[in-house]
């Protein structure tokens, strides 16, 4: 799988993502500076976590206007696969490649802790490594992860199976108003969503930080294994 990772000024989880991709796919991804204007030949573009442009103004807002984003938009239009994690998810909503927006966490504090994610739709390239209803652990680390969208958008996301991951308890219980189950207060406990064609995926937590048995656990591995299966076949 040929993957590229986009680096904006202030991106800080590009190495983590590269490590995960290398570990699981065996190939080091290409690092793409935000000033570049061509993606080259890629199967997957990843927008990693961090604080692009300091996350000043709104998280992801300035990165959404970086030169490379025009090319990423074309890539999406051609049906390319794009994964945005954390700040990458925020960049995708700010550039309208995914609907909705990510507001300040409901508790108004940055959260860095493990959370549990429930796989809602296991038929996508991003989720096929799991079964629907599976629950896995992932670290989260963000101040603005509180997903919101208009009622119509939320309804469409639900109706079209475009909610990829939802926050839950370790046993898979979903409860929107309980901070233990839904730490940042996201609408409908949404942690990750898909584009209409299912090829653009954004999620807040960091599966890439849980892929190495030496660091604790491998809960994040199915995401990357599934992508390899889907995109290299």
């Amino acid at each position, binding site marked *: 799988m040929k993957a590229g990772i986009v680096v904006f000024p202030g991106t800080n989880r590009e190495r983590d993502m590269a490590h995960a991709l290398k570990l699981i796919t065996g190939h080091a991804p290409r690092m793409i500076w935000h000033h570049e204007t061509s993606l080259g030949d890629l199967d997957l573009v990843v927008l990693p976590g961090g604080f692009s442009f300091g996350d000043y103004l*709104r998280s992801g807002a300035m990165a959404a*206007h970086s030169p490379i984003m025009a090319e990423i938009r074309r890539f999406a239009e051609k049906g390319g696969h794009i994964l945005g994690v954390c700040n990458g998810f925020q960049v995708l909503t700010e550039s309208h490649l995914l609907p909705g927006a990510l507001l300040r966490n409901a508790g108004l504090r940055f959260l860095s802790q493990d959370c549990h994610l429930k796989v809602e739709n296991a038929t996508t390239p991003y989720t096929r490594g799991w079964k629907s209803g599976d629950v896995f652990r992932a670290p989260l680390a963000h101040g603005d992860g509180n997903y*919101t*969208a*208009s009622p119509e958008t939320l309804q469409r996301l639900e109706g079209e199976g475009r909610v990829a991951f939802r926050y839950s308890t370790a046993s898979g219980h979903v409860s929107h108003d309980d901070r233990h189950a839904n730490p940042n207060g996201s609408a409908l406990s949404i942690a990750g969503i898909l584009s209409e064609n299912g090829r653009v995926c954004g999620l807040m937590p960091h599966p890439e930080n849980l892929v190495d048995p030496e660091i604790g656990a491998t809960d994040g591995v199915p995401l990357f294994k599934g992508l390899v299966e889907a995109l290299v076949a």
Partner: protein
Amino acid sequence: MKIRVYVSLKEGVLDPQGKAIGHALNSLGFQGLGEVRVNRVVDLDVPADDSSAAIAKGEAMARALLANEVIEDYSVEVVA
């Protein structure tokens, strides 16, 4: 020309920060406050010949970057 771009959360979008501030003000003894909203203003000095040109520029900047129209409204005024 100095302009001010006000960016505010759309009505109906929850403003947890405003809520928290309302709460804190209340416990400081400021009672009977209605809804509290915290918004952002961006103060800029734009090269423009007249107010309407300056405002048009402010609006263009708001649309392009300063506001996220999914969740925010904006308005622009000339301050000097």
